[in-house]
């Protein structure tokens, strides 16, 4: 099947109806009174048998002109045919975000599926790769279409295309597809919005199947245990250019406290915040909006959270340093200072009794022989302690020796500033710091550093790190030592067992609703909610196709330009037309 370099030229076919109209006007006989028909008797009437040369002549010229228009338009559109029999490699990048469900039942996903099937049936691609674009690219499968059943295989594979991600990182997926496919591959992006910039004449085509719609959504929902009560925050947004109203129903899963239903009227793009206070240990709370074009964001479930506070023992003699640490700990919210059975010891002693316990230790070492370092700071970004640190402009006072025990996490040149020693799952961190020579404690890096440590420790204490998570984020469960598998039961799915790594079980939250975990004898529940404002906003959706493979310089060698053929035929037809016209004069 030929493809066209300039498909817009096909608009020239509008000349065909114009030609038909002209002939129609010409065929309309004008009325004229004459003195007598006596002298017109030799002229045959138009309807007489159609054997008159006039009757034959006009339709023939008409068809020749019509054919000429058709051939010229096809020639101008630049028909290209494939140079060989082999299929071209194709990677289809599928937007896996939940906005693809917008407009159900005529959702972007369903329209896209139909278009993909049509494309695969019309053209041969060898091999065909399907790549899901979610938080990160994921290969769905690779198919060889040479056996003829490629389309069915592709449809089967695409059953796993659920469109349940809170975001689709298409750029990453596109780069991945090009890397995976090599130089010859072409990439087809299937999504519901227009590209940020026109793909142009590249190996990329962008097909969007979305349509602008209004949507009322719950865009934020949290539940925290604070001061012996559970606080619930709901944010409801009207993602529309016009005011809209809906109903908000709030109920608990156990039907204990009954159901409340309120009508909610919001202006264009208005967000309403609702705060509820529940008794500690209240059952899961369910909030539901009236139905609209996207159902996934109309409901949230918030299960009661397990407050995991880390017991911290502060053993710091230096009063000034103690104040700094204490202030940073207070800002973390999940640290309780205590001396009994501490999980984390922060001390300024060079050696301590803590070495013998299971507690983690942060040893802050203030050496006498010290200097202020402006950098360059080298940070191990893979380490949990380095998350969120920005040390540019920081002055760090530290000892000068290059030899220091532990794996360096932060160094100033070749001077280690923060190191980590791990012994049987227990960490001992050493922080070299002279506050009197530093500005570190005056920057946000200080509370971040302490918070990273507390969070890291909290993650390793048995229990869920968070009970209410957003779709697509990680669910982290620290398990007791000796447990190497956790059983997970997601909504409408069978239980499955997954391995534990270093005492921590981590799984991606991919199913909206309440899921259950079983680690040994302990059971946990967590709720996953679709809370991505950008995905719920359907006003930016678009329908269209961008990009043209045929124009791509990289792929032009696969095609042969056939413009000459229709243009040559058009010239022949015009010559016949001219001959007929001159013959009839």
């Amino acid at each position, binding site marked *: 099947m030929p493809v066209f370099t300039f498909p817009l030229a096909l608009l020239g076919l509008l000349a065909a109806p114009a030609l038909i109209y002209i002939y129609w006007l*010409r*065929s*309309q*006989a*004008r*009325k*004229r*009174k*004459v*003195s*007598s*028909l*006596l*002298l*017109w*008797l*030799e*002229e*045959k*009437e*138009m*309807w007489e048998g159609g054997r*008159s040369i*006039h009757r034959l002549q006009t339709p023939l010229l008409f068809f020749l002109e019509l054919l000429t228009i058709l051939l010229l338009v096809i020639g101008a559109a630049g028909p290209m045919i494939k140079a060989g029999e082999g299929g071209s490699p194709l990677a289809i990048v599928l937007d896996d975000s939940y906005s693809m469900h917008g407009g159900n039942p005529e959702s972007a996903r369903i329209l896209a599926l139909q278009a993909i099937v049509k494309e695969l049936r019309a053209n041969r691609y060898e091999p065909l790769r399907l790549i899901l674009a979610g938080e990160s690219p994921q290969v769905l499968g690779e198919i060889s279409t040479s056996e003829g059943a490629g389309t069915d295989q592709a449809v089967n594979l695409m059953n796993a295309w659920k469109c349940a991600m809170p975001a689709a990182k298409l750029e990453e997926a596109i780069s991945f597809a090009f890397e995976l496919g090599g130089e010859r591959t072409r990439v087809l992006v299937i999504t519901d919005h227009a590209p940020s910039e026109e793909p142009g004449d590249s190996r990329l085509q962008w097909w969007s199947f979305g349509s602008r719609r209004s949507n009322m959504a719950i865009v934020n929902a949290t539940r925290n245990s604070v001061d012996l009560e559970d606080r619930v925050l709901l944010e409801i947004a009207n993602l529309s250019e016009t005011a809209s109203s809906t109903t908000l129903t709030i109920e608990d899963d156990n039907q204990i406290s009954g159901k409340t239903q309120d009508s909610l009227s919001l202006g264009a793009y208005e967000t309403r915040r609702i705060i509820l206070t529940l008794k500690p240990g209240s059952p899961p709370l369910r909030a539901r909006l009236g139905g609209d074009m996207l159902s996934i964001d109309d409901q949230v479930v918030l299960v009661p959270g397990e407050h995991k506070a880390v017991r911290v023992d502060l053993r710091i003699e230096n009063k000034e340093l103690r104040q700094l640490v204490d202030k940073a700990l207070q800002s973390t919210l999940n640290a309780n200072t205590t001396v009994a059975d501490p999980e984390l010891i922060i001390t300024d002693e060079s050696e301590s009794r803590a070495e013998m316990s299971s507690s983690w230790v942060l040893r802050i070492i203030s050496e006498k022989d010290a200097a202020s370092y402006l950098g360059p700071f080298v940070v191990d970004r893979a380490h949990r302690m380095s998350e969120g640190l920005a040390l540019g402009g920081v002055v760090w006072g530290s000892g000068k020796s290059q030899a220091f025990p532990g794996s360096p996490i932060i160094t100033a040149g070749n001077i280690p500033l923060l190191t980590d020693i791990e012994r049987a799952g227990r960490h001992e961190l050493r922080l070299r710091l002279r506050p009197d020579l530093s500005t570190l404690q005056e920057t946000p890096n200080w509370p971040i550093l302490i918070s990273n440590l507390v969070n890291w420790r909290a993650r390793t204490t048995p229990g869920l790190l968070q009970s209410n998570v957003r779709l697509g984020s990680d669910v982290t469960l620290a398990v007791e030592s000796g447990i190497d598998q956790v059983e997970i039961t997601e909504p409408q799915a069978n239980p499955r067992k997954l391995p534990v790594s270093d005492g921590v079980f981590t799984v991606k939250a991919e199913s909206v609703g309440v899921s259950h975990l079983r680690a040994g004898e302990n059971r946990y529940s967590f709720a996953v909610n679709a809370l991505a404002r950008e995905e719920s906003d359907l006003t930016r959706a678009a329908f269209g196709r961008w990009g043209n493979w045929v124009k791509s310089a990289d792929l032009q060698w696969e095609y042969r330009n056939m413009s000459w053929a229709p243009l040559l035929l058009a010239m022949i037809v015009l010559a016949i037309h001219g001959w007929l016209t001159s013959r*009839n*004069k």
Partner: protein
Amino acid sequence: MEEEIRQFLIEGEQAGMRYSLGTPRSTTAATSGLQLGQRAGSSLEFREHRDYQAGDDLRRIDWNAYARSDKLTIKLFRDEISPHLDLVLDGSRSMALEGSGKLRATTGLAAVLAIAAENAGYTHKSWLLRDWCEPIANGSNRPSLWDNLEFDYRGNPVEGLARVPPKFRRQGMRALISDLLWLGEPSRVIQQLAQGASSILVVQVLAAADVDPPERGRVRLIDSETAEEREVLIDDRAIRRYRDALARHQQNWLRACRQAGAVQIEVVSEKIVSGWDLVELVKFGILKI
């Protein structure tokens, strides 16, 4: 319509005031004398002999000459004639063709001839040729007084002329104003007119559209008399064929007129009514200034 025709007649009257009727340069073969008298006379005066021609009155054969030469010869006399004009107007609907100047030219020319005849001392009588040749009311008076002129006859005027032969004045001049666009043998009409006439004038009034069809393309032609329709494609070839057909038709009439010694002239209505320039009629000797 009546007022319009009267206006045309007055227009023709005014145009004809400066002319007098002349004698056409041919005379009828069927008449007894070749030369027409310029004024009224009472005696028959021998003029000459000529060979017998078909249609000549057998009573005029000179049997003495036949005995001498074994050839049929007839005597021609300067005959006594009455200066009278019988003016016959074709009352067909086609003479009032919409969008043309035919009605104006026909009635105007009739008025010109009538007034020119008066100026030359002729009496005149006007006739309207419809289903029969009927006298026009007040047709012997000045044209502006003529009444009941109606050009709406849908039949063939030849039949009308044959059905009830008009009582034309003997030895008078007869003029027929028509577009001659009807089926039938022209000589039948001419013979009818020539019976006892001293001279015959046939004025063919055609519209410009009759001479040169202006339109090209697909045209539904409607016969102005019969309302019959015919859809044809008019192109250069069709127009050429039409002109050939018109020329052949005119040739037939011309041949019939020549045989009867009648004079036929063609006028284009739109041309003649724009200023009433009658130079063609003067050139043929029909009108004299």
